[in-house]
């Protein structure tokens, strides 16, 4: 390939074989460093307190939409063969495509409302930083490209499992095979590049809140008591 390499090939090589490693390396390094050194900065950074109405129409559709979409991507990545088997029935393929598209629309509607909220509400504006705008913009880019792919390159659940999943596995196995993705349409490529950019920026942004989702709450006992000293030990010391 390298012998007849065009500039276009080098681009492909960078975006699909080098960027993923830059993104993953940065992600792990900075996330861990940030958590251990400045754990205080991990917070949902909610602004519901400042603006409580548009908040609902932004945050709720966005989160439910994005969770559905991410789970879908993850399933396609994890068990591509089973997805292909599922899709062998056209009706089932249709159901899964429509569900995914609705999820995408929810995410888009939510995100648009989040934009409107942060642009129009004076109080919400106060707690919106530059990096927040970058995060929102890249998310918008990602959702728009994703929806474009869904509309113009339909049956994405099918070809995702057949080409993107093996590509992602090849990346994870440190043997990136970009031949899987180079034939993809531009919107799909942009979508993949957007994903790597999000992973790259992730540790520098408020997105880290999704690493501290409170799952232990579901099985811990309700009341927590902390003792600042070992009670028995203090007493034995005292009685000496």
């Amino acid at each position: 390939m390298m012998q007849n390499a065009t500039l276009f090939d080098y681009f492909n090589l960078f975006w699909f074989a080098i960027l993923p490693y830059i993104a993953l390396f940065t992600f792990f390094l900075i996330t861990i460093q940030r958590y251990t050194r400045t754990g205080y900065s991990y917070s949902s950074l909610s602004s519901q307190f400042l603006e409580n109405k548009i908040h609902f129409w932004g945050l709720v559709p966005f989160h439910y939409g994005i969770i559905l979409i991410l789970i879908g991507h993850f399933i396609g990545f994890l068990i591509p063969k089973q997805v292909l088997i599922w899709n062998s029935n056209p009706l089932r393929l249709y159901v899964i495509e429509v569900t995914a598209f609705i999820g995408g629309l929810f995410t888009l509607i939510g995100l648009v409302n989040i934009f409107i909220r942060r642009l129009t509400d004076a109080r919400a504006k106060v707690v919106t930083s530059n990096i927040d705008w970058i995060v929102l913009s890249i998310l918008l880019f990602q959702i728009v490209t994703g929806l474009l792919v869904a509309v113009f390159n339909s049956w994405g659940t099918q070809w995702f499992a057949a080409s993107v999943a093996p590509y992602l596995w090849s990346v994870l196995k440190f043997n990136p095979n970009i031949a899987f993705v180079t034939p993809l349409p531009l919107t799909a490529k942009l979508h993949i590049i957007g994903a790597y950019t999000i992973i790259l920026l992730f540790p520098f942004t408020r997105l880290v809140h999704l690493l501290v989702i409170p799952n232990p709450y579901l099985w811990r006992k309700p009341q927590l008591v902390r003792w600042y000293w070992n009670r028995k030990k203090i007493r034995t010391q005292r009685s000496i």
Partner: protein
Amino acid sequence: MDVRSQISMVFHLDKCIGCHTCSIACKNIWTDRKGTEYMWWNNVETKPGTGYPTKWEDQEKYKGGWENVKGKLKLRSTGKAKIIFNIFHNPHMPSMNDYYEPWTYKYETLFNAPEGTDQPTALPISMVTGKYMDIEAGPNWDDDLSGSPIYAENDPNLSALTPEQKSQLFAIQRLVFFYFPRICNHCLNPACVASCPSGALYKRGEDGIVLIDQERCRGWRSCVAACPYKKSYYNWSTGKSEKCILCFPRIESGQAPACFHSCVGRIRYLGVLLYDADKIEEVAKKSDTELVEAQRSMILDPFDPEVIQAALENGIHEQVITAAQNSPVYKFVKIWKIALPPHIEFRTLPMLFYVPPLLPVMSSFNGETIKNMGEDFFPDFDKARAPIEFFGKLFAAGNNSKIRYVLKKQMAVRTYRRAVTVGDIEMDLAKKMLLEADCSVEEAEAIYKLTSLCTFNDRFVIPPAHREEAIEMLRDPLEYKQSVGFGFKEEPKRGS
């Protein structure tokens, strides 16, 4: 029996003059930072009134506290199942509009204004956005406004009154109010702790103070929604929740909390209660009318040798037990039974108790005062200016007999002391009243002394915390010498 110690409080409402000195002392020490301007860990409300945040007692609106669902205690809005669906947007979360938008004034305009025929004004600007704003509400906007159709008439406690009582209460000649200072109750069954998804809130084992670990708080704000007293607040700037810490750095060094220390009316008492932690769940499940008595029964007698033995075995220091024996709170709550918990029907088992005010009840009846005696020598409380049902709703979960008992005893003590000092009341009558009020002469003297002649050391019996020993067990102090100390190792700055 699992004996634990709890720093508890009594506020004597008859003595509160509503000066807000407590609030200012607290504000100056703890909540004058960015993001906390709107917080009042200590605030003073006028009752009847809507309070701060507006209508905090209305759990139909805020869904705070616990409810007993078929024998199981459940959080009203932030339980485990509900958090999954509400974590992105909790519909019962108070917003800044439920408190007020904090403001300051643009004082430069006093100097910069162009010369004119009128006085220049310092315009109010928002402490959130920095823009000019119209002030619509403040933390004590219902101050002294009993009778007002906006504030007093919307007091959630008025639901206990008949329409007739309500219209009487707001008749202009009968207007009545009292002050209701509030801090965190440092509950035994705190809803805030139980609701925290991150496990950042906890109760300190040694003294029962409820705190939020700022490092572990992730700003889910469940505690804000769960606390039925709305005493947990969200710092919109740092993205972390904060609450009253009962000035634990002061308590650990033997000083009273700032709001207690600064109290002009000397209405505040602080001391240790020993209680049986095994009983928490059982008590919190009792029916509304049993709750006050059930909570009282958890509080253990610090003179009982069995209790002392169990306390020592649990690692409670002898000096803490001594402090519990001298505790003014123990006297008010357990021995004299004249201090009651606020809204115990929220089932968090608050450890701040109130002596209900006698004055608005007494100064009543056609402009006359104390003379109006019923057959049992006491005025007819049911005809009182402030309906007994109102206090019943506020301090006894509707069990009005508890209020009657307190008011009778206070009235008897007052009459007795009047017989002693002024002498215009027969001592026989006073003693009969004491008997009727379940109060001995010695007890009356003790109540009188601790209410009227109390010194600083009578009001605040603070056990030594011995943190110097505790800290040495956890860390070597010398390791931090000439270094950062034990506190923050990073700047408490808002994350991105």
